[in-house]
């Protein structure tokens, strides 16, 4: 598959302080995003996620490195025509209404009036803001701003969509809606690069991820390769059994009324517990096997780097 985005050895530093001192933000980043995939760009705050996105968009200039978008030099207008971008905590012209705002971007893309009006209607429908089409953006809630931001990012029907923390500040319902839009974009053949720290969402929708820590990519690959599907432990909830009978059969006992919550690491122990429950005529409420999550991987990688 062709590469939608290719970054090689990207370095960026800034001068900070009264007596300027150089601070390195990106320390040689290389990554490639394949066409048609959803790529998650993860990292703790201050790792350099937004700086990378700003370099791709030409908002800041890297000290060193190469960026290509569908094989085109990233600063060319042709490359930019293929990009849609949603900034983190989007701030937009608050004196404009939602329609005026999108219409402005239509003009920037030199889209004809009729086509533009059609597109605005379609986008407002997609992000669920039709009823607020004529409301000034200053009256919009954060979630609504995020949605109108997504609409402007999609105005030019981009092949590569860059989303900086698209799910930040949204309630669970809002997160689901945006997640659905992202999955829909993939279905339409678009490539999505999204930076986020909400790992659960990334895990649900991303094909591949890269983990960025302190300006360096520590881990990169498909979710299947990165997260082992081995069962780490099993959570059991039982009742009608005395805790003393279960000694040595699991860790982390906790009690919720009559219920006992157990963390069991070996399969044999599970069987033994089941026998005890049967003997004592107790009840099993749940047995949940836990595999490694993206969060486990992320925390492990970040901690390893800190050590």
């Amino acid at each position, binding site marked *: 598959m062709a590469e939608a985005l290719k970054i090689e050895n990207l370095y960026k530093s800034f001068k900070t302080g009264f007596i300027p001192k150089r601070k390195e933000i990106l320390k040689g980043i290389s990554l490639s995003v394949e066409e048609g995939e959803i790529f998650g760009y993860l990292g703790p705050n201050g790792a350099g996620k937004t700086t990378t996105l700003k370099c791709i968009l030409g*908002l800041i*200039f890297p000290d060193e490195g190469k960026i290509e978008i569908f094989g085109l030099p990233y600063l060319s207008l042709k490359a930019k025509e293929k990009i849609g971008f949603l900034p983190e905590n989007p701030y937009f012209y608050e004196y404009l209404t939602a329609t005026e705002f999108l219409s402005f*971007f239509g003009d*920037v893309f030199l889209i004809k009036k009729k086509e533009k009006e059609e597109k605005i209607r379609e986008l407002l429908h997609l992000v669920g803001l039709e009823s607020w089409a004529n409301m000034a953006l200053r009256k919009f809630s954060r979630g609504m701003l995020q949605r109108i931001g997504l609409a402007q990012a999609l105005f030019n029907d981009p092949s590569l969509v860059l989303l900086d923390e698209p799910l930040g500040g949204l309630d669970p319902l809002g997160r689901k809606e945006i997640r659905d839009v992202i999955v829909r974009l993939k279905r339409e053949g678009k490539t999505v690069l999204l930076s986020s720290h909400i790992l659960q969402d990334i895990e649900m929708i991303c094909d591949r991820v890269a983990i960025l820590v302190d300006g360096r990519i520590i881990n990169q690959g498909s979710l299947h390769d990165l997260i082992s599907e081995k069962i780490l432990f099993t959570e059991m909830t039982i009742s009608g059994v005395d805790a003393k009978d279960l000694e040595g059969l699991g860790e982390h006992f906790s009690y919720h009324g009559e219920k006992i919550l157990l963390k069991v690491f070996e399969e044999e122990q599970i069987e033994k517990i089941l026998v005890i429950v049967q003997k004592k005529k107790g009840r099993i409420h749940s047995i949940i096997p836990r595999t490694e999550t993206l969060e486990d991987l992320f925390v492990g990688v970040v901690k390893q780097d800190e050590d």
Partner: protein
Amino acid sequence: MKIKAIAFNTFKEAIRDRILYLLLFFAATTIIFSRVLALITVGDRVKIIKDVGLASLSLFGAIMAIVMGTGLVYKEIDKKTIYSILSKPIHRYQFLLGKYLGLTLTLFIMLALMSLIFLALVFLHTYKIEWNLLLAIFLIFLELSLITSIAILFSCFSTPILSSIFSLSFYLIGHISWGLETLIQKIRPGFSKVLVQIVYILLPNLENFNIKTEVVHYLPIPSQLIFFSTLYGIFYTLFVLTIAVLIFRKRNFI
């Protein structure tokens, strides 16, 4: 055109700013107040109205240009609205020129409104249309266009307060730099004379756009003067905008 889209958006932003109307109100009040001044003046009352009126157009126009020009680009960077615009297929120079043209359009309309009040007041006294007044207003517009470019230049790399101070200094220096001409004549030839001459050339001379005396006192206005002032205004503005674009192109939007 992409520049047109940015310009109209800038225009929309500017005309929704309440400060503009406050300044317009003060300008109108000052122009009308010239009528009161005329009442307590011995001699030609119309001259006072013209003199105070044209001075108000220039001064309030300059304040509008500085207040809006220094804030517009800075606000885009500060509020991060520039991120979504510059990530679109648009050159940075197109963005900056769009901002400049949008602001110039706003100033043109504001100047037209102020001029309407002023010309109506003069007409009520003279019952004739004086074309020379329009010529004076045209030159004031050229001056405002130049000041706007200066304000935008400073706002590319500085905060609104500092940019306002710089732009206001430019305006004031521009109106007194002609005094150096007298100084050059009085200095003996040598290093200091060359130095003062260089400073004189580099500093703006906004008095080139001031033909109030000629208009108020019905003195002849040579066409070369208008021609020279127009060229001076256009080239100086283009020069300042070029520097602004060069700075803006290199800027990192952190």
